[in-house]
C-alpha cells in the first residue's frame, strides 16, 4: 500500500511512471483515485477546460483482407458475395456528404486487398486531391507494409510517395497490442510490433504525424497492455509524431476470437493508466463507439480530452454488433454538461 501511495505522489509530481508502477496503479488503485490522477495529468498536459472533437467519416475502400484477424468481423475473402472495392462514384458521394456536414477529414482505411497495390492507392489519393479539398487521414501501418511489400519498395519511399500523392496523416490502427506473443494469437498474418513501430518512425521522420491506438480486452495480460504503452511512449520520445492515443475495447460479437468484452470499469481503468503512462502524448480520445456516449462522457474525468469523431459512417465496430450512434448536437451537449467547452478541431488538434 505504501508503494501505491508513493506512485500516487509520483504521478502528482508529474514524474514518469515505470511499467511496474503502472501495473500497480491498474491493479490496485481505487477507481476514482485512479481517475483523479489521470485527470490531474490531463490538465497538466492540456490546461484548457475544452474538449475537442473532429467531424469526419470512416471510409473503408475495401473489406477484402488477407490478414483475416481473429478479432475482426469486418473482413471478407476476395470471392465472398459481399466483398467490395469502393468505386470512385461512391467515394465521391461519401466525401461530398462529409464536406456538406462540416467535415474536415476522411479516415480512409481498408483491408489488405491482394489486387490493390501502391499504384492503385496513389491513384486514389491523387484523384481525391484533384476533386476535393479535404484532409486524408489514411492507411494504418499494416496497409502501408502491405503496399511497400507489393511494390518492392522500402517503407521510406512508399511513405514519401503517399505523402506526395496527398496523404496528410496516418491513423494508429492495426497496433492491436504491440506484443508479438499476442499478435501471433489474434492476428498472425498482420505486421509485427516492430514493423508497426517502424512505419510510424519513418512516417514521423517524413513529417507525417499519426495517432496510436490500442485494442485491449482479449487475450493480452494487463502487463502486455502496459508494454504496449511503453513501446508507444519510447517511440514518441524519439519522434514526437503521435498526436493522440486511442485505447478501445475489443468487441467480440461475430468474431472468431469471441469472448466477453472488457467492462466499462475496465475500460476506464485502462484509459486512466494510458493517460498517466503516456506523459509525452498530448491527447487521449474517449471511445463512444465501443463504450456508448455516457461512458465516453464519464471518460472525460478519467484522462480523456477528446471525444474523437462524430463518425458519419463507421463499419468495422458495427460489424461486431456494436452500433452506438451520436450526433454532433449530442456530443456538444455531453461535453457541456460535463462542464467543458466543446470545440471542433482539425486533424492536428487545432481548434476551428
Amino acid at each position, binding site marked *: *500500500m505504501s508503494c*501505491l*501511495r508513493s506512485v*500516487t505522489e509520483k504521478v502528482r509530481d508529474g514524474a514518469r511512471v515505470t511499467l511496474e508502477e503502472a501495473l500497480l496503479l491498474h491493479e490496485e488503485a*481505487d*477507481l*476514482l*483515485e485512479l*481517475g*483523479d490522477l489521470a*485527470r490531474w495529468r490531463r490538465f497538466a498536459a492540456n490546461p484548457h477546460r475544452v474538449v475537442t472533437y473532429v467531424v469526419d467519416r470512416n471510409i473503408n475502400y475495401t473489406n477484402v483482407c488477407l490478414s483475416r484477424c481473429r478479432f475482426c468481423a469486418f473482413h471478407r475473402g476476395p470471392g465472398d458475395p459481399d466483398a467490395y472495392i469502393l468505386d470512385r462514384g461512391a467515394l465521391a458521394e461519401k466525401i461530398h456528404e462529409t464536406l456538406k456536414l462540416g467535415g474536415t477529414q476522411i479516415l480512409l482505411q481498408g483491408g489488405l486487398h491482394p489486387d490493390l497495390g501502391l499504384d492503385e492507392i496513389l491513384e486514389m489519393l491523387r484523384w481525391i486531391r484533384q476533386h476535393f479539398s479535404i484532409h486524408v487521414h489514411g492507411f494504418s501501418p499494416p496497409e502501408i507494409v502491405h503496399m511497400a511489400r507489393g511494390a518492392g519498395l522500402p517503407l521510406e519511399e512508399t511513405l514519401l510517395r503517399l505523402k506526395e500523392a496527398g496523404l496528410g496523416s496516418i491513423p494508429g490502427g492495426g497496433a492491436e497490442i504491440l506484443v508479438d506473443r499476442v499478435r501471433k494469437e489474434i492476428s498472425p498474418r498482420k505486421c509485427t510490433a516492430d514493423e508497426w513501430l517502424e512505419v510510424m518512425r519513418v512516417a514521423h521522420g517524413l513529417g507525417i504525424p499519426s495517432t496510436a491506438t490500442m485494442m485491449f480486452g482479449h487475450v493480452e495480460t494487463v502487463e502486455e497492455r502496459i508494454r504496449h504503452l511503453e513501446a508507444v511512449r519510447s517511440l514518441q520520445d524519439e519522434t514526437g509524431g503521435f498526436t493522440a492515443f486511442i485505447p478501445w475495447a475489443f468487441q467480440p460479437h461475430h468474431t472468431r476470437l469471441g469472448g*466477453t468484452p472488457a*467492462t*466499462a*470499469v*475496465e475500460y*476506464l481503468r485502462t484509459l486512466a493508466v494510458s493517460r498517466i503512462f503516456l506523459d509525452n502524448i498530448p491527447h487521449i480520445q474517449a471511445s463512444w463507439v465501443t*463504450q*456508448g*456516449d*455516457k*461512458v*465516453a*462522457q*464519464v471518460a472525460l*474525468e478519467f484522462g480523456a480530452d477528446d471525444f474523437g469523431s462524430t463518425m458519419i459512417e463507421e463499419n468495422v465496430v458495427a460489424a461486431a454488433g456494436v452500433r452506438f450512434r451520436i450526433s454532433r448536437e*449530442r456530443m456538444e*451537449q*455531453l461535453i457541456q*454538461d*460535463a*462542464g467543458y467547452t466543446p470545440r471542433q478541431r482539425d486533424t492536428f488538434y487545432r481548434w476551428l
Partner: protein
Amino acid sequence: MNAKLKEINDMEMTSRSQNAFSLQEAVSPELRPLALKVEAGERLTREDGIRLFRSQDLLGIGRLAQVVRRRLHGDRAYFVYNQHINYTNICINRCRFCAFARDPGQEGGFLLSPDQVEEKVRSRLHEPIQEIHIVGGLHPGLGLDYAVELLRRIRRLRPETALKAFTAVEVDHFARKEGCSAEEVLQELKKAGLSALPGGGAEVFSERLRHRLFPRKISAQRWLAIMEAAHSLGIPTNATLLYGHMETMEERVEHLLMLREQQDRSGGFMAFIPLAFHPKNTALSHLPRTSGWDDLKVIAAARLILDNIPHIKAYWVMIGPKLAQVALSFGADDLDGTVLEEKISHMAGAETAQGMTPAELHDLIGRAGFRSVQRDAFYGEVSGCLA
C-alpha cells in the same frame, strides 16, 4: 472468512483508501465543507445538496459518496433474480413523460387477464425467481378485486416469492374505485400476498411540474401518505425520482429531502432508485436523453443526502449496464436484477437488453472490483443460487 472478519477487513479497506489521500484534499474546494461532514457522519443540508449538483467535480462527488457507500455496504453489490409483469398499459393519467400508457380503446392498449398473468408466472416456475415486480396503468375498469385476484393466484403458484406490486399511484386508484382508504386497500393487498410496494409514481415532488407534466397523478403529499401507511402496516417500499426532464437542481434536492423526512417518520424505504427520463415516444421527445454525468451525480447525491435509506439502486435498464457498473463506485450498491420483460422504459426508447442473466450480473459486479451478493426482495443474501 466469517462475517465479522469480513466486516473488519472492509473497514480497513475503507480507512486505507481514505488515508491514501485525505478526503478533503481529494475533492475540489467547493466540496470541502461536505467532505468534513461526510467524514464526521453529519447530515447534509439543502444547500449542501445544491452544491453537490452544481459542482463539476464528478470524481470528487463520487469519492464522497463512495465513503458512505463503503461504510454501509463494504464491497458488497447486490442483484436480484426477478420477474417483471406489466398487467396493463391503459391509463387514465396520461402523464406527458410516459411512452407506455394508452387511452382506453386506443390501438396498442393491452390488459392481461388474471389467467394470462398466471400463465406468465407459470411459464417461469422452474426459475429461482426471488421477486416479482408488478405494476400497471390506472385502468378505469380495474379495481381492488383484480389486484387481489392477481396476488392470490401468484401467491398460490409461488408461495415463497416476494410480490412487490402496485405503486402508490395504483393503490390510490384502487382506493378511489372502492371508495375506501389507502390503508384498507393495503390491508386487503397484504392479506392477498403483497410483500412490498415498488417506489414508482413519485416522479418529482414539485407542484410546478405536476401541473405541467402529470396533472392527473396524485400529489407528493398523497404519495408520501400512502408510503407512510404501507410502512405502518409493515409493508416495506422503495422510493424513486424521475429526473432529466424539466426539473431544476433545487427540485431534485427538495425531492430527496422530502423522502429523507418521510423515512425519519416511517422508516420503511429499503432502496432509492433514480429513474432517468427517456424522452423517445413521449410528449417531451424534444428533450435530450440524460447524460452519464447527470446519472452518476444523481446516484452520488442520493447516497449522500439519503443517509437513512439503506440502498441506492443503479437500475441498469434505465442507464445501461455499463454506466450502472461504474455507478457502483459512485454510491450505488444494487443493480436491480435480471428483469427479462421490461416494457415501460423500452417503449420510451431505452436501448438496453430486455434481461441479464445472474451470471452476467455477477461478472459485471466482480469486474468492477466488488463482491456480488445475490439477494432476495429484502436484501437478504440468497446462497448458492446463481442460476
